[in-house]
């Protein structure tokens, strides 16, 4: 039997959402032996990393095994076997998808596996350098090594929930071998066992995030936490957030960030639902650094609520803002959805002005919504609203868009009430420190 090593590619069995068997191509990232059984860590090509998993050998289609090319075996700069996933060259047939692909249609990717991604990243300098110090996300992934590409925590227990992490998170290495990592629901401290958590809870009297509540409506509250003043909590929050955010970097400390934690109240306390972080001073109009709805609360409108809240803050500040890039797939979908709904809400709310046809500038939309101009344009394009008619650009609202919007808004119950927001922006540049 041939030995399967890191870098090999082969179809691996997985169940899709319809619970049907699929055999997508996958890359072996790691091999380990647990109780005399070999386990393979696979990354499904063209699937998000969060679906990577350990599989037994019986799920591997050995017949279609592709060995890595020579170069793939050359170690990366970090001394670890480089194994960046890269999509095979492909044609994008879907017309709608084409529009989304940025202006690099002919971008060639290495068909073979392994090797560092040379075309997309400027890793040619060869000297690993510390990542940029602004922002919270890494777009440059040339420093990714195999360790960070693999999930290291099997399961996290947080309050009532058990979460399966999606990505690597730098919790203390001693804790990564545990089947379950226990987190205090309120202070987010990580503990190795239930007993420890029990003991911890006798000492921890927090029942809400350790910051000021700046918004409350119904059971939803927002707490503002200063990454400098409350380091422990901020770091713990980042650690768990990293489990679900691929591009988030924990390279630097949390000092320049504010954390807005959204909680839902029940008699047990204020339970964390999601959060977003925000740079105290952003040079690039970012009003959100990282944003996350914890998996148990996903697909219930909390993400949009978080986004809405972030724009409400920007409105108070009198600025337009945009989320820090890169967006994740879910992030993009959420933001698109929010932007679409927000803009359509405005457009449909425009009334004819003494017989004149209603009209609006992009800048006006941006000012009203605090959504950055570029995001407004991209949303209008995405919704296919911009048309050229009689020598000028116009916005046209098609029936399906209007219908879809109305249906979506009908389902959107959770909204931010600006009246419940008690927020005074601080001028951090004048403080001299974060």
């Amino acid at each position: 039997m041939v030995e399967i090593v890191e870098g090999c590619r082969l179809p691996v069995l997985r169940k899709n959402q319809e619970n049907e068997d699929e055999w997508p191509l996958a890359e072996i990232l790691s091999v380990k032996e647990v109780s005399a059984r070999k386990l393979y860590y696979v990354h499904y090509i063209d699937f998000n990393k969060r679906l990577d998993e350990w599989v037994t050998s019986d799920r591997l289609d050995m017949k279609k095994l592709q060995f890595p090319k020579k170069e793939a075996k050359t170690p990366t700069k970090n001394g670890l076997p480089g194994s960046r996933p890269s999509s095979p060259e492909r044609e994008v047939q879907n017309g709608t998808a084409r529009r989304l692909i940025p202006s690099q249609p002919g971008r060639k990717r290495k068909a073979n596996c392994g090797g560092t991604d040379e075309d997309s990243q400027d890793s040619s300098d060869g000297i690993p350098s510390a990542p940029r110090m602004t922002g919270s996300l890494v777009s440059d992934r040339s420093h990714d090594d195999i360790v960070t590409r693999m999930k290291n925590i099997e399961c996290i227990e947080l309050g009532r929930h058990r979460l399966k992490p999606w990505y690597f998170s730098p919790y203390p290495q001693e804790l990564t071998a545990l089947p379950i990592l226990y987190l205090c629901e309120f202070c987010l401290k990580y503990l190795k066992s239930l007993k420890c958590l029990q003991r911890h809870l006798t000492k921890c009297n927090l029942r809400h995030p350790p910051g000021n509540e700046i918004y409350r409506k119904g059971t939803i509250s927002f707490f503002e936490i200063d990454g400098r003043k409350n380091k422990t909590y901020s770091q713990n929050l980042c650690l768990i957030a990293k489990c679900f955010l691929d591009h988030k970097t924990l390279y630097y400390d949390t000092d320049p960030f504010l954390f807005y934690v959204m909680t839902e109240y029940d008699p047990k306390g204020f339970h964390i639902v999601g959060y977003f972080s925000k740079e105290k001073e952003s040079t690039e109009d970012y009003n959100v650094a990282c944003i996350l709805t914890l998996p148990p609360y996903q697909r219930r409108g909390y993400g949009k609520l978080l986004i809405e809240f972030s724009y409400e803050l920007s409105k108070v500040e009198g600025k337009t803002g945009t989320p820090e890039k890169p967006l994740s797939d879910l992030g993009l979908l959420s933001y698109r959805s929010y932007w679409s709904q927000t803009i359509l809400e405005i457009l449909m709310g425009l009334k004819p002005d003494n017989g004149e046809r209603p009209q609006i500038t992009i800048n006006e939309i941006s000012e009203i919504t605090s959504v950055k101009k570029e995001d407004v344009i991209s949303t209008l394009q995405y919704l296919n609203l911009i048309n050229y008619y009689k020598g000028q650009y116009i916005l046209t609202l098609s029936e399906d868009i209007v219908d879809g919007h109305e249906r979506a808004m009908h389902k959107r119950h959770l909204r931010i009430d600006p009246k419940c927001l008690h927020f005074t922006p601080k001028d951090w540049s004048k403080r001299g420190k974060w």
Partner: protein
Amino acid sequence: MSKLSFRARALDAARPLPVYRRAELPQLTDCGFISRAVPQMPSGMDKDEELEHHLQRAMSAQQVFRERKENMVIPVPEAESNSTYYDRLYKGQVKVPKQLIHVQPLSLDLEQPDYDMDSEDETLLNRLNRKMDMKPLQFEIMVDRLEKASTHQEVSLAEAKRLLNEDDYLLKSVYDYWLRKRRNRCLIFQVKQENRDGSTNHHAYVAFRRRTEKMTTRKNRKNDEASYEKMLRLRREFSRTVTILEMIKKREKSKRELLHLTLEVVEKRYQLSDFNGDVLKTVALPLEEKAVYCAPVNVNNSSRHKTNVKAKMQKNQVSMREELTFDPTRPKNRCTKWERLFPPQRFPGRLPRAESIYRADVNQYDFHSSGEDEGNSTMVAQTPPTSDDENYPDGVFIFRRTDGCLYLSPRWDGGHVDIQPLHERHFLTKLSLSPDWMGLSRRRTGRGGRILLDRASCSLDSLLNQLDTYPGSWTRSRTVYPNEPVDLDQKLLMNSSSIPSLSQALKNIQTLRRCCFRPRPIQNQRITDSRTAGPSVEDRRFLDTPGSAGGITEEQYYSHQQQLMKMKKQQLEQLQYNEAMSRATAPLDHQRNQSHRSPESTSRTLDSVSAHFAASAVVSTSPSAQDALRPPKTTGVPNCPGASRSSYSTSSSVSGVGLLSIPKQQSQVGAVYPTHHHNIRPSAPPPSALKLATLAAKVIPVSGLPRDIDEPDRQLNGLSENTQPMEVT
């Protein structure tokens, strides 16, 4: 399509876009083509991930259906929310406060141990608890401390003992257990820290690295530093404030107590009907003495302050006099500058201008006696203000009361202070040292332990001087030479009748000063009729103790002795002849000098007046010229450059000081050399003497030979020369 050959304008964000419904524009079919003119906006996603299968699928689904379909969402790893033990774990309920939750920025958090006990620890704890009682928290605190104390190396048992204040058995058990369990790895798990050397720059598990200084700009860091320092200062000042307030509290308490006690005393006295204070006196008898010196001290505090102010007022003038001795050509304003740079206190060897207590001081300090010498105090009041600066010539050596010292008020024998027979104070003394001398003198200990010999001249001096020539023929005796006491007031009256008012005032001052010369209790000074060359203290001699012998050589001492001798002789001789005349001319002399006469005029005066007054006049020009306010009676001797300049105190300077402080000196210290002295130089007026005079008059000496005023020997010579011409003329 051909219509669209033009190039569409770029989308202008500032341009209004009309909003249409699709239904309103049926002809708009090929708009999709046109819309390509709008530049594509990047999605903002990572390019790799943009192409991911599920995203593409989800996006197409959205495009198609305009809403999410359940099977079109991006799949994520599952999450369960069915914890069965949640309620048991998170006990208690929380009520929502009405107000928004506000966390106090500096809420004092209870210091809880970071270590959380696990089940293994629980087993140990249970085992230990069979023997003793131990709470889990206690155990956690112990482990927490041990953990935090040990970094790479575990703490030793001894250190642990110091760290934990626990029972030995308990400590040992926990320590051993902890050591076994720890096995070189931390029990409190922490996110891996960066190594400062940069070796962990790319370690996957290292997180939350400190940002390098690029993030905090220099300015900000400076601010941090500054504010930190400010905080420190603030802290210091606050603690100081606390101390002060505590002291104030204490003081106020004491005050209150004193008040209460006083009240009590008064009440008690009232009850005892002790209205005249007899009972109090008897009761407070042991305390009375104390009370006596307490009161003057208090008074002294205020008067000393006054004195200081006066001293300050006087400062400039003093400095000018000092200056004179150093650089004769220096202008006045520069003198004051110099004075500021080198205040007189800087010269420890400097002589006190006069160690005397003036009447004014007496009045101020000894209020006990103030009632007794009212007449004198009125005299003080009558003295012109010009005397003020001379009242405090002591500078640093000014008399200050010391706490705890008992200062007795002067004993007045009669109604008049000044009439005190000299013989009570001065004794006939013979010096066994080389300049054999015999005369009236008294011995006292000066400041710094130096022994001073105050010499007094008397009518017997000539006789004594002759006896001097027979060395060894005298033994020390305590023979009293009675002298005729003269009533000062009478003398003053007499003077006022014969001389102008200014001179009378000066005389007054001088008279007063005479009694102020001595340490306070010794108010009495033997004053004889000046016409008969009454004895007066003329000289104070340093007999330096061996330890402080300093720089007085024997020759210097000797030469000085000789000068003194001469002066004494001259005084005696001259005074007898010219008393009346001198009395009349001396004031005139002073007036002239005050009006800045040239040295010639001075010399003419010298010619016309008796030599003994001329001497005093010449020397007195310097101070008077400098400062008209200053009483001109002072002799030139104290201003002798060498005297005050020399590092050691020469006897001449001492004598000068003595003279300065002795009023009426000019009449008594007629500086006429005895003819039989070998030192007489029949030369023309010596340059230095002229120089002194001219300096005072701010005129360059006519025949002044430049002299090195810094040279002490020269000075001494100069001194002798100084007096010489007076005799000649």
